[in-house]
């Protein structure tokens, strides 16, 4: 398991990404002006943050950023706040945000976690309540953003495993989930193996991207045994699901 509290891996700088792309002149000047207003008076962010998509559009800029999320990240990094006051402003934006805004807050957390500024307090775990609230929801786009580098670096083991399993249920591809390379452990493998068995017993398919995590742990042997027993089940769809799962697990 990763050491908790370590700085998360940081996404590409949204300012750099935005500067390389042709943003409409009106959008660029809106963004520059909005940044300046927020730097001068932080609570200006409350009216500016919701309108960013209407000004900057939603075009995809690179593998990580769309124009609206990059612009919203720029607005958040312009906040002249650190520590608890920063966390409070983020909590307000999240509380009153629509799903696109909530996602943008979550995706900006790794940037805010490192940018402590001169004499500023770190964000540390102060935004973790937002991650937890997002993980209790049902919108897969928000859940996916909650399990980005900030959440993945800071959630305790049990919560991280539950969050990964929830992603599997939500059909969020696991290659979009941060932290698995260091945090996937034997207990998560056991949970995924139980999930696979449950699916097979229901005659359903198992998402293929869980297999690498099961294979790497002792859960593999136990699951192989249980799936082999399922190949003798009375219901044909259950037997067939077991055969398919066994083939994928090998």
């Amino acid at each position, binding site marked *: 398991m990763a050491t908790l509290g370590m700085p998360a891996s940081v996404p590409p700088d949204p300012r750099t990404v935005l500067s390389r792309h042709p943003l409409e002149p009106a959008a660029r000047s809106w963004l520059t002006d909005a940044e300046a207003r927020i730097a001068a008076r932080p609570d200006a962010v409350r*009216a500016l943050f919701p309108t960013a998509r209407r000004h900057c559009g939603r075009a995809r800029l690179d593998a990580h950023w769309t124009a609206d999320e990059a612009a919203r990240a720029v607005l958040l990094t312009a906040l002249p706040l650190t520590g608890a006051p920063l966390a409070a402003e983020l909590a307000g934006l999240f509380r009153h945000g629509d*799903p696109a805004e909530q996602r943008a807050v979550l995706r900006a957390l790794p940037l805010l976690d490192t940018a402590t500024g001169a004499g500023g307090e770190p964000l540390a775990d102060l935004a973790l309540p937002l991650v937890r609230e997002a993980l209790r*929801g*049902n919108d*897969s*786009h928000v859940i996916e953003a909650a399990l980005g580098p900030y959440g993945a670096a800071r959630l305790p083991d049990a919560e991280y495993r539950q969050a990964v399993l929830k992603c599997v249920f939500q059909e969020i591809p696991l290659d979009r989930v941060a932290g698995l390379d260091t945090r996937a452990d034997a207990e998560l493998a056991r949970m995924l193996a139980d999930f696979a068995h449950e699916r097979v017993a229901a005659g359903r398919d198992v998402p293929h991207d869980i297999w690498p995590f099961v294979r790497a742990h002792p859960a593999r042997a136990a699951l192989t045994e249980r799936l082999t027993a399922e190949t003798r089940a009375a219901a044909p769809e259950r037997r067939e699901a077991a055969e398919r799962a066994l083939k994928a697990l090998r």
Partner: protein
Amino acid sequence: MRIFDPHIHMTSRTTDDYEAMHAVGVRAVVEPAFWLGQPRTSPDSFYDYFDALLGWEPYRAAQFGIQHFCTIALNPKEANDPRCRPVLDELPRYLAKDRVVAVGEIGYDSMTPEEDEALALQLGLAVEHGLPALVHTPHRDKATGTRRTLDVVRESGIAPELVLLDHLNELTVGMVLDSGSWAGFSIYPRTKMSEDRMVAILQEHGTDRILVNSAADWGRSDPLKTRKTADAMRAAGFDDDTVDKVLWRNPVAFYGQSGRLDLDEPKPDEESSFQGNSVRRGGE
């Protein structure tokens, strides 16, 4: 046939309704913020409701191929409860959202001084945010209430074409169209307005600035009434283009005045495998 239901409370409806609506041609809806069967007693339950209108409901709708937009306001009935009034102070935050295409439902329920104040204040917010206004007309004393609503609209300074007065009938449609505002009709199984009466109104008043909705909610109502009205129009001899105007182009024109009716937006759930499955809720 493409249908835009300009007034429907999907929060109260099931995924079966979404499937049935899509099957008859509904591709876009506007869900106005309103009262629920059970009165609320604190601002926080409004904020959770607004969050659902901006979050969960569009997410659900998208999984059935329907675009979901909403209107936000403190409704007239609950504007009378001093415990709910602080909602008015937080409205600007919500009126800034991308999927909010009007201020509404505002208007009168019992025509109290509190309702007067909330109506005038929220018409002012519509002007300030460049949004249209969806105005509910009262069920009791409707003609008087509609006249009084039109007076307040005039005094507010909002352009009449930015205002939609809803739940109209044979006795209130004339004064609303004469004022330059839009006229909305809620087609209900037993009350308000029926398909056949609606057809008669269209024959008498034409199809300009007229919207037809199901206003389906938690009461006895039918989310397919828009399609049933379209069928009644065709049976009465209206051509397909006129049906398309009333059931699609008119609501697009009215809510399009917000500048936020992005009907081309990519479906947020393109990668989901909802076909043959139920709405995803993280525990199935």
